[in-house]
């Protein structure tokens, strides 16, 4: 412990981190946000279908379709991310021409995250009071109007909370992408900590990851509370403190 904190190691760690940290943070940030965005592009409609397509949903789909959808989602969610990253290498090559680099690692991130996002969206949408949907139907709303004007706006706070969970989870997965040549804080942590035993540098990278998760989480929580109109001024003050 003493040798770890003795000045040459510390000086080296600070030197490495000061050179890499800004790029690392940026790479982690943009790959996370990009992957989350595309995970929602696929996962949000799937989550909506999971709710509206049920037997008692507002636009029932054939049972077989729902079953296939569920199997695919569960299948993808049960493959460990480390394995999935390797499995989708051909896909990354097909789409981007390469499987190495920060951008290329967003492909396995999206593949891993969209089924998770679909489930998050599903559970948010299920929170919407069935009575409110019934009221909209009784006014003559079409299934599309019910989704766009009732279900999504009514579950917005919960969707934002879900997106925060997705963002922080994808950030965690993204750190693993260092192993297959992705960039970001994860790469620095793995390259220095795992391959070269420079624990102090790894620790520094991890601290930066933790700070990023904290920021994402608190911004997300605040946003979710702020846009929830079920919460009156009084309860809002209580929840924040």
């Amino acid at each position: 412990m003493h040798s770890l904190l003795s000045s040459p190691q510390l000086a080296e760690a600070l030197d490495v981190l000061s050179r890499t940290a800004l790029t690392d943070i940026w790479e982690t940030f943009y790959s996370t946000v990009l992957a989350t965005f595309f995970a929602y592009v696929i996962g949000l409609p799937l989550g909506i279908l999971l709710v509206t397509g049920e037997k008692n949903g507002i636009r029932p789909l054939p049972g077989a379709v729902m079953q296939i959808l569920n199997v695919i989602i569960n299948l993808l969610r049960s493959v460990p991310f480390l394995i999935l990253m390797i499995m989708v290498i051909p896909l990354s090559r097909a789409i981007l021409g390469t499987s190495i680099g920060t951008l290329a690692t967003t492909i396995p991130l999206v593949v891993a995250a969209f089924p998770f996002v679909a489930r998050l969206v599903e559970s948010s949408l299920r929170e919407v009071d069935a009575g409110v949907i019934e009221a909209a139907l009784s006014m003559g709303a079409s299934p599309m109007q019910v989704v766009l004007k009732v279900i999504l706006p009514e579950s917005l706070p919960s969707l934002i909370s879900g997106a925060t969970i997705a963002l922080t989870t994808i950030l965690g997965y993204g750190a693993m992408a260092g192993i297959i040549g992705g960039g970001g804080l994860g790469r620095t942590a793995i390259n220095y900590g795992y391959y070269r035993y420079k624990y102090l540098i790894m620790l520094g990278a991890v601290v930066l990851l933790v700070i990023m998760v904290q920021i994402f989480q608190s911004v997300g929580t605040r946003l979710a509370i702020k846009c929830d109109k079920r919460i009156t001024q009084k309860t809002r003050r209580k929840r924040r403190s």
Partner: protein
Amino acid sequence: MIEIRDLSKDFPVDGELFRALDHVNIRIEDGSIFGVIGMSGAGKSTLVRCINLLERPTEGAVLIDGKDLTQMTPSELRMQRRSISMIFQQFNLLMQKTCLKNICFPMEIAGVPGAKAKARAQELLEIVGLPDKANAYPAQLSGGQKQRIAIARALASDPKVLLCDEATSALDPNTTRAILRLIKDINRRMGITVVVITHEMAVIEEICTEVAILDGGKVVETGSVERVFSNPQTEAARRLVYPDGVPSEDGGRKVIRIAFNGGTAEKPIIASLAIDCGIKANIMAADTRSIDGKAFGTMLLGLPEDPADYAKAIAYLKKQSNVELEEVSDYHA
């Protein structure tokens, strides 16, 4: 006019079909306030949902001004629903939207331009007596205020029919009366036909002109409120009209009056009568109070007609201290 013709609805329950509505026939005249009353589980809510086809009937037809809703395509049905509004026990307002936006909602669905919808919504807020709540969110309102907003929303599409599904059941008696007055007022001023679903007699008495009594999915009695309530013909109707202490029709009961003159209130006489003698007494009316731990007042008990049981009960009651009893020979409800 709303005509419900030979309507039945089955629900699958544990693999079997449960008949929630059984060949229901109802005619509701334009401009009337029609009540449907029944105990919980009688099929009231299913019936009202069949009127706008939120529930699709298994058999039968629902005609509004001669047009059969069950034969309509989904888009025709959506158009038709704009003229049939509905309010609910739990209000079902959009919690993330302001009151004004809630009232604009049916107009938004129908494609009414925003400015026009807003102006109309403000008018409706005046009608329901909440002009200052335009920018409030439902979470900031009381139950009665929420129902007023729901009523304003229901009126936004200029409906011909207003369906009220237990609309006052979550409200206290005073608020209930105020909401019922509002509904009655709307019915008079705008000529909207109102269908009221309730389990409360008071609601029917307060505003309805016609009533149908629903029991076990069947309409057992229907007609004007005065006629049905003054002379209920069926057991189900009598249960509703005299919710506490009905002169039971079995005739196999004798009635006695017992007076408590300060016996200990802790001693449960009626319960011990059942346990000690195995006699089930029916409390038909009671006015007792406990003063300083002692029971005072009178109670009307229905006892079995079987002479042996009757004698046993009388003997048992006579043994109790501070209890006097007399037979009531000419008991009428």
